[in-house]
């Protein structure tokens, strides 16, 4: 049974369906790629699933249960987390605090009387060392380079300890070494039985990483299957190259 699935999910903007009755299923221990040309609805899909945009129809199931409350904070409680196309960091606090903020208490009263502990620091230290940002831990996040920002956002998402990770173009514009680091992180998450959703344009990376692949175009699923199979389908080639 999939960890996350959607049934006839609809999101429209002014009458145009950006996500058009979409049925997708994401399994644990798998990396699932979402591909499609620009404007095909991939990011809108992620925004709808994570409660940033209110959905206009359909259902979302998590672990077999219908998700009823769709505020972003509630979605997080279902074990769903994500990254953004343009990394959204908390700019004017330190790199370390950017990680700590997802490790600490969620409850207001609990948080008020909690200070981060050695355990929190150890967890944050481990992930920061893994992405090579430990030396930068006391810098403000706004001082990081583009690649470091992407790494920090992914480190933060991983620290959420979710069941479902939605990565929106995590590799875009990065050097091969950095791509390798992030690929490793994605594989590690998969090996821990999490469901990893990857929006990606680079088909070589999709072939290398993804176990399964959905192709979206105009808000609809036009093909699904293993990456090698899907990328040979004529409707997929047509969607990318135009008629």
């Amino acid at each position: 049974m999939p960890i996350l699935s959607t049934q006839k999910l609809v999101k429209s903007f002014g009458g145009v369906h950006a996500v058009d009755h979409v049925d997708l299923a994401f399994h644990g221990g798998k990396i699932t790629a979402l591909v499609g040309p620009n404007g095909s609805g991939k990011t809108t899909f992620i925004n709808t699933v994570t409660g940033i945009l209110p959905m206009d129809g359909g259902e979302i199931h998590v672990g077999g249960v219908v998700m009823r409350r769709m505020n972003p904070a509630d979605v997080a409680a279902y074990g769903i987390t994500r990254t953004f196309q343009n990394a959204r960091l908390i700019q004017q606090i330190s790199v370390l605090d950017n990680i700590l903020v997802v490790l600490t208490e969620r409850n207001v009263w609990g948080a008020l009387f909690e200070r981060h502990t050695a355990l929190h620091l150890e967890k944050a230290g481990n992930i920061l060392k893994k992405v090579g940002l430990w030396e930068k831990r006391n810098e403000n996040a706004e001082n990081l380079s583009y690649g470091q920002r992407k790494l920090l956002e992914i480190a933060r998402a991983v620290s959420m300890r979710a069941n479902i990770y939605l990565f929106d173009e995590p590799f875009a514009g990065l050097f091969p070494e950095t791509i390798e680091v992030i690929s490793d992180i994605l594989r590690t998450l998969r090996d821990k039985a999490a469901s990893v959703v990857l929006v990606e344009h680079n088909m070589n990376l999709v072939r290398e990483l993804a176990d399964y692949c959905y192709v979206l175009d105009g808000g609809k699923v036009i093909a699904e299957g293993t990456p090698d199979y899907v990328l040979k389908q004529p409707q997929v080639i047509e969607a990318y190259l135009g008629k």
Partner: protein
Amino acid sequence: MEYLIHIAVLVCLYGILGLSLNLVVGETGLISVAHAGFYGIGAYVTALLLVGLGMNFFLAMALGIIASGLVALLISGVISRLRGVYFLFGTIGLNIIAWSIFLNWQSVTRGPLGIPSIPRPGIWGLDLYQNLQFLFLAAASLAIVYFISVFIKKSSFGRVLNSIREDEEATQIFGYATSYYKLAIFTIGAMLAALAGALFATYITYIDPSSFTINESIFIFSTIVLGGLGSSRGAVLGPLLLVFLFEGFRFAGFPSEIAAQMRMLAYGFALVLLMLYRPKGIWGTFRI
């Protein structure tokens, strides 16, 4: 000497107001100019309980703080749903409504006549009638508020506030119900402002609505912008500088009506110049 003590008491009061407003504006990024409203609620409730019922000072002050907190809790349930500039207008409205009530609910507040002869507090049989003794009370209160402010900043709660300040939506994605956090800090800020109000009422021994106008809120706001948003030290330094500046105008021999307008002129200019040349203020950690 008496005059210096008076200034020191004022610095303590505005320091408390600055620290508490900084929690809302500097740490959480909620641009609020309603602080004088809560300051006024604290002052009025305390004064009325002291004058009307002859209640013990600390009990009256505690009730003033609770009243202000309750109002903040109720109101912020509504206005914490507003964002950015709309939140600002919500707080302006809040201050105007609070002030209208001080001014127009004459059967309770005596309207523009104000409440005279508010007794100074006594502790352990010690009469704080002397200004010097009152200064100890005010300074102790400032120290407590400073401690609370640092405690909040260093807690996990404080980190979440900073996170809300810069990207509320992302903070929600981390799993935080951000509206509760905003509600909590707004209420805490209002309660601490009411503490300053209770001290003010008993220090001056007379209050009227003119001390709690929107201009007073803008003044408190400008003190922390000057000191630097997101900095507890700055939230005390800013009030210190501006209170001295204001007393300087009076000392230079301007009549008090003109001195009050000169104060407005000074902090208005301070806001404009800070935004143009140093939006971070003196010790700020947060660039708006």
